[in-house]
């Protein structure tokens, strides 16, 4: 059973953290992963940096630019992750844009993911249909869960369709926006979280975008299975470095 599915079965609200591979320094990737696990995080999204991350806000974009500048590539990432499963056991997801994967070769990319112990992928610009028609079988062959996004604007019909072809969790974007652009949730979000909860989907939902502290984490996980923090953590890395990961996670959970 995939580590993601296992984790989702645990009876707790999950905290998932996003960070950009090769940031702040090229060799920080595994350190950050290890420190996150040690701090009690449930799941990690490893950002494969992209030159033109159009679903991301300035914070993550800046970290991607830095990481690329540091020399991060798909090849290098797999190299760094070669032994990660010797020390880390929580689910690891690669989050990245489609073009670098396409250039690597989608099948080759998936194969490498399996080899190093990646459990799933989040590819914001790979549409559900294209995935379904062209890549689903490859992902499955290598035991990878592909995670799709929904937003407050996604129609019920489409949510059900996405639920039907998902086999891990649904990435519930808190509000239609790029990463890092919200602070705090209002009535609209609560209403949306509730609406989705009421749909009783087969896949659990994890909320992303706009979570930055304990308060928003609690709000987000009131109706959902878990929450993902990205920009706030990347900012913390920028300001406090890889050794203080613990502080950040503690501040979210308590």
């Amino acid at each position, binding site marked *: 059973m995939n580590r993601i599915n296992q984790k989702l079965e645990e009876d707790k609200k999950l905290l998932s953290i996003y960070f950009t591979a090769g940031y702040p320094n090229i060799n920080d990737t595994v350190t950050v992963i290890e420190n996150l696990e040690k701090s009690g995080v449930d799941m990690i999204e490893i950002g494969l940096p992209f030159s033109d991350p*159009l679903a991301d806000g300035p914070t993550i974009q800046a970290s991607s630019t830095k990481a690329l500048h540091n020399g991060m590539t798909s090849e290098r990432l797999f190299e760094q992750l070669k032994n990660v499963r010797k020390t880390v056991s929580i689910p690891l997801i690669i989050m990245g844009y489609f073009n670098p994967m396409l250039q690597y070769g989608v099948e080759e990319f998936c194969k490498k993911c399996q080899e190093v112990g990646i459990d799933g992928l989040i590819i914001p610009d790979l549409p559900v249909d294209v995935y379904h028609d062209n890549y689903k079988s490859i992902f499955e062959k290598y035991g990878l869960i592909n995670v799709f996004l929904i937003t407050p604007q996604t129609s019920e019909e489409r949510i059900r369709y996405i639920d039907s072809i998902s086999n891990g969790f649904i990435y519930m974007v808190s509000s239609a926006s790029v990463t890092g652009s919200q602070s705090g949730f209002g009535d609209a979000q609560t209403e949306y979280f509730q609406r989705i909860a009421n749909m009783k989907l087969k896949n659990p939902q994890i909320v992303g975008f706009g979570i930055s502290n304990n308060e928003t984490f609690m709000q987000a996980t009131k109706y959902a299975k878990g929450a993902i923090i990205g920009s706030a953590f990347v900012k913390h890395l920028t300001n406090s470095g890889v050794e203080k990961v613990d502080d950040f996670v503690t501040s979210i959970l308590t």
Partner: protein
Amino acid sequence: MSYNINEKGYYGEFGGAYIPEMLYPNVEELRQNYLKIMAEPSFQEEFNALLKDYVGRPSPLYFAKRLSEKYNTKIYLKREDLNHTGAHKINNTIGQILMAKRLGKNRIIAETGAGQHGVATATVCALMGIECIVYMGEIDIARQAPNVARMKMLGATVIPALSGSRTLKDATNEAIRDWINNPVDTHYIIGSVVGPHPYPDMVAKFQAVVSEEIKSQLLEKEGTENPDYLVACVGGGSNAAGTYYHYLDNEDVNIIAIEAAGHGIDSGESAATSVLGKEGIIHGSKTLLMQTKDGQITEPYSISAGLDYPGVGPMHANLYKTGRAEFIAITDNEAMKAGLDLCKLEGIIPAIESSHALAVFEHKKFKPDDIVVLNLSGRGDKDLQNYIDYFKL
């Protein structure tokens, strides 16, 4: 074999809609409605009336006598430079603003490189009394200052794109981010035949008026609808798409696409996508783009802000791949020289983008009785400072 788009939104293997889910409702709404709306008689009527009375169409098909003499062939210039706002871009923005109104949108965003699309968008927004936000790379803001001033005059908000190469690619990223953040009331007026389906097709159809006019104008002047060659510069590819549109499947007519070679194909500072690009995804579309072997999009370079883009629209990727069009790359220097030449020979100051197309005559020899129709996509008012500095006039 057709070189036009198929029902799935692809030209051959290029096209599609590789977009984040956040954009899905917007793009899907457009995809489902654009052909229907464009076919409505009231849309057609309003579109055509504005093209005629506001834009000043038809744009002339001008026989360039002295240029033709110089190159010993028959050169016709399609005068998109005479359109209101000074380039072909307005054909598309007129269409899209009418589309946006019918979709009930009350906020418009756009990206711009040379500023022509930004001005054309700001213009139609003023015309309709709709809020307008234009994203423009910081570098382009500096090198196309007159167009920035025009956008301000027209009441648009110009937001600098500070990331990446700070040119068109990055402005497009910013515009897409804005759209993600404003998914309900906002329409994104893309300025070229790029982006997710249905944009490439929609923009091409709005620009198709160019080749529609060429057909009847050439018939009047030469007794045939078919030139021997069509020539256009390709940034994203909208003026080219408009020029080729009604000739795409007519293989009697040769198609030439001109790309910007910047300092030279092998200089590392270029925007010649067909030579330097590979298949990939950029701005929601599978097409040819310049990228590292690792799939990072390369920062392009051209002296021309409107051609300084690392991709081409999917129509053009397909025209290249299939060999339907001949692609020629023109350097900064060649373009500038061709631009000045047109000033001196014909009294027309071309946009630097169009100057790239004009340089074709130094690259390729045409026969004396060849009819060559070249899209003079824009006027050079926005580029005066660049020309003056370049030639130390």
